[in-house]
């Protein structure tokens, strides 16, 4: 039965040919396998784009409808932490690119260090994000039963004039989207850090530097995608209206 299975494979007449252990039997060459799996990874990322896209769409519509509430709510975020976090995440993308580079150069030590640096930067990002979330709880700016519109009807610390209570209520929509979008982004980062931690352990044992770099390539693509999402989240959530004209 086994011999029959090999016979329908199509290459039985050539007998067993030499190929790396990581080349799966349904691919002809390593290049073909890389092209196919790279294509699959990008399809996954494009459906992730549509997943985040739904939230960006909701943000766009509500921002157009309740612009004063969005501007006031956005101004209560700390843009300095936002900018620092942006730079941290961009740098972690850079170190992840270095990981791919060193995997191809077959430099196991540099690869492990680049992955570790990406993990550390990711954790610092999440730590700063946690302090921001904490501030929102302290300020009663978390949507729900304990939400307070006081800062928005008094104009306290919002950088914009006081607004009517009904418009002030719509800041809850902004904060709902803020927590949904940054929370989903943070969840992606936590998953990414988990994947990188696994790869760091394996890289230290010498994996990925014997020619089979694909897992590092795809972890890197995922990490960059999460970075791209943040590149849009930062201006849209933190910089709505820092220069009020009225």
């Amino acid at each position, binding site marked *: 039965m086994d011999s029959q299975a090999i016979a329908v494979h199509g290459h039985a007449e050539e007998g067993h040919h030499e190929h790396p252990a990581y080349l799966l039997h349904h691919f002809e060459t390593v290049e*073909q396998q890389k092209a196919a799996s*790279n294509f699959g990874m990008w399809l996954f990322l494009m459906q992730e784009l*549509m997943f985040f896209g739904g939230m*960006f769409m909701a943000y766009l519509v509500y921002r157009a409808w309740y612009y004063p509430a969005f501007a006031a709510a956005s101004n209560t975020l700390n843009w300095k932490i*936002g900018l620092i976090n942006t730079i941290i995440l961009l740098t972690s*993308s850079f170190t992840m690119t270095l990981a791919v*580079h060193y995997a191809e150069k077959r430099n196991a030590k540099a690869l492990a260090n680049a992955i570790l640096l990406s993990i550390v930067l990711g954790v610092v990002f999440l730590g700063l994000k946690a302090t921001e979330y904490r501030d929102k709880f302290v300020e009663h700016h978390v949507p729900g039963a304990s939400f307070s519109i006081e800062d928005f009807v008094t104009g306290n610390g919002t950088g914009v004039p006081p607004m009517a209570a009904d418009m002030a209520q719509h800041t809850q929509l902004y904060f709902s989207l803020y927590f949904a979008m940054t929370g989903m982004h943070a969840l992606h980062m936590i998953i990414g850090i988990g994947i990188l931690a696994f790869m760091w352990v394996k890289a230290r044992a010498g994996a990925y530097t014997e020619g089979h770099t694909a897992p590092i390539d795809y972890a890197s693509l995922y990490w960059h995608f999460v970075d791209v999402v943040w590149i849009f989240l930062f201006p*849209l959530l933190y910089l709505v209206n820092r220069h009020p004209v009225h």
Partner: protein
Amino acid sequence: MANSPLHPKYEVKVSSYVLVLLALIVLSCLNTGLAFLPVGIFHPIFAVGIAVAEAMIVILFFMHIWWSSKLMKLTVAAGFFTFLVLIVMTLSDYTSRAWGLW
């Protein structure tokens, strides 16, 4: 190994990646600075424009699409085009449904 059209070979220097990172940091700072300038209704256009430039830099150079096959370039372009369809079609509905009733 042959240079397959589906998976082209390329080599990028670390110094090039450093330049890409610096460009991204400069653009992020520029975007933040711009938010404090009195550019009025043009601000969202600038903000999203700079973010799109940054995203393209990450996708082209960090995610290596610049050196990838035409199939990959088309796949990524198709993904973002589909996202634009979502935005344009939904917004055209939201802006035109109550047309003339304001």
